[in-house]
């Protein structure tokens, strides 16, 4: 794997209606910041023919209408925008607090993660919840945030055999990534806890709670608090906290 960002972004055709701009083939804050900065700048510039933008770990997908612009014209305009970005500083995004009940039935793999690293469960919880994580991208299933990076002290590879069903709200670790299952889905991430809050609701606008560039902080809660928040979420009375 290349361990450095590309010297200059690669502009690549992605079928007949999209352009892919790659900044590197690695998970890094620097690369993802470039992606989000270009995403925000292209959005703001309202480039003719652009229909949709998809920021990921290390690239920006630009879906366009070839009846309104050509591939060459689009590349030219976006390179122009990219060049103006070099001097810009990027904001840190929103900070959102996600309450999590760790361990027990909510986090069946917490014991494994602790044992693997010679820690006790409380230490894993402390390490996992004491830092902020960047939302690198949303993918896999609707509203699933890929968060990074988990420190080596608790980084744990995926299960060898994925579970057929991981419950909605499950918080997991996969290598140096951590993430939250917005709905029940199959998956191989090591599940260490569960949040009662809703990460995705197709009836809301926008449908996902998080977006790339946001910072997530996990807050350990008791089982009692979990049940209380779960009820409030069902009634529509729960507003996710943001941190000043």
């Amino acid at each position, binding site marked *: 794997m290349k361990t450095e960002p590309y010297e200059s972004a690669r502009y690549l*055709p*992605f079928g007949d209606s999209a352009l892919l701009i790659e900044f590197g083939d690695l998970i890094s804050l620097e690369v993802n910041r470039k992606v989000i900065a270009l995403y925000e700048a292209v959005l703001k510039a309202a480039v003719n023919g652009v229909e949709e933008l998809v920021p990921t*770990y290390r690239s920006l*997908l630009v879906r366009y209408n070839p009846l309104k612009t050509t591939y060459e014209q689009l590349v030219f305009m976006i390179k122009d925008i990219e060049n103006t970005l070099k001097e810009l500083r990027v904001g840190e995004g929103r900070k959102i607090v996600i309450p999590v009940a760790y361990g027990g039935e909510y986090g069946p793999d917490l014991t494994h993660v602790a044992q693997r690293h010679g820690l006790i469960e409380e230490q894993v919880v402390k390490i996992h919840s004491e830092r902020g994580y960047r939302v690198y991208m949303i993918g896999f299933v609707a509203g699933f945030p890929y968060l990074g990076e988990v420190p080596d002290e608790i980084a744990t590879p995926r299960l060898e055999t994925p579970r057929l069903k991981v419950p909605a709200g499950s918080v997991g670790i996969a290598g140096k990534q951590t993430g939250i299952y917005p709905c029940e889905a199959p998956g191989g991430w090591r599940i260490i806890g569960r949040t009662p809050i809703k990460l995705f609701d197709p009836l809301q606008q926008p449908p996902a709670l998080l977006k790339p560039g946001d910072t997530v902080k996990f807050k350990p809660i008791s089982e009692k608090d979990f049940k209380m928040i779960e009820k409030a979420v069902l009634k529509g009375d729960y507003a996710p906290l943001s941190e000043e």
Partner: protein
Amino acid sequence: MKVFQVLKPGLFTTVQDLGRYGYLKYGVPISGAMDTVSLVAANFLVANNPIDACLEITLIGPELQALTKTQIAITGGVISTKVNGQSVPMWQTLEVQEGDVVAFGKMESGCRTYLSIRGGINTPLVLGSRSTYVRGGFGGVNGRQLKTGDIIEGFDVPSFKVEYSMPEELVPQFTDHFKVHVILGPQADMFTEKGIETFLSSKYTITLEADRMGYRLEGPIVEHKGKADIVSDALLPGAVQVPGNRKPIIIMRDAQTTGGYPKIAHVITPDISLLGQAKPNDAIEFSSITTYQAHEKLREYYKLLNTLRRMLVSKL
């Protein structure tokens, strides 16, 4: 307005329209009809808008009972259809009366058939579309495939009749051998020259793992230069990714929005619609064209979609 009751659901029947655009960044796939051309034609045959929702029927059709008098049309994959036991033709407006039973048989060619209802199917708009996204559990009828007892709701429509048919020479014929055009990239440089050559010159077979999310292919291996993994980036319908087992996978409309395998090529938009009629054991061959050539084909394709309505013959 209640239009149909589902007596038998068929193998996999869902509500689909042109798709759900603008939410890829939240992990929401585009979904929508796998064969866009047949969906649009079905709508025009009952004087609907092209964006209206239809039923997408897969391989084995449902049995529906009309709860009101209405007009319907059947397009796409060739399937025998009977109304109260009498065979009815595809690609033309049909009238059904309250109590009539519309029974579909098995697919004879192609993979997906579209049933339009005059005025369109009325399920709630979710993120701007009525398309069913089963994995996410939203859109269509309660976010899932149809089951026995479901009611299909429609809209009130004007009482005048329409009667259209598609000229025979314009009715698409589906074979079991698909020749599709691709644009190489975006990660074609991760494959050896031999790998790309193999991909473009071999015949692949669609395996049983083929659904609205994607088609896994069987055939000669496509060689990577080095690693077969990338840090995840975006996916779109039509992307051809090649994982570590070196067998291509074509991404279709319900696939996840990001993926970690290199993409050797991308099927052009008109041929994605064509592949909506591909089924397990069908053969597929890829040929590469330039972006410029692809855009010429895309303009012809949009022109076809825009002129389909004018090409219909009205019998009234």
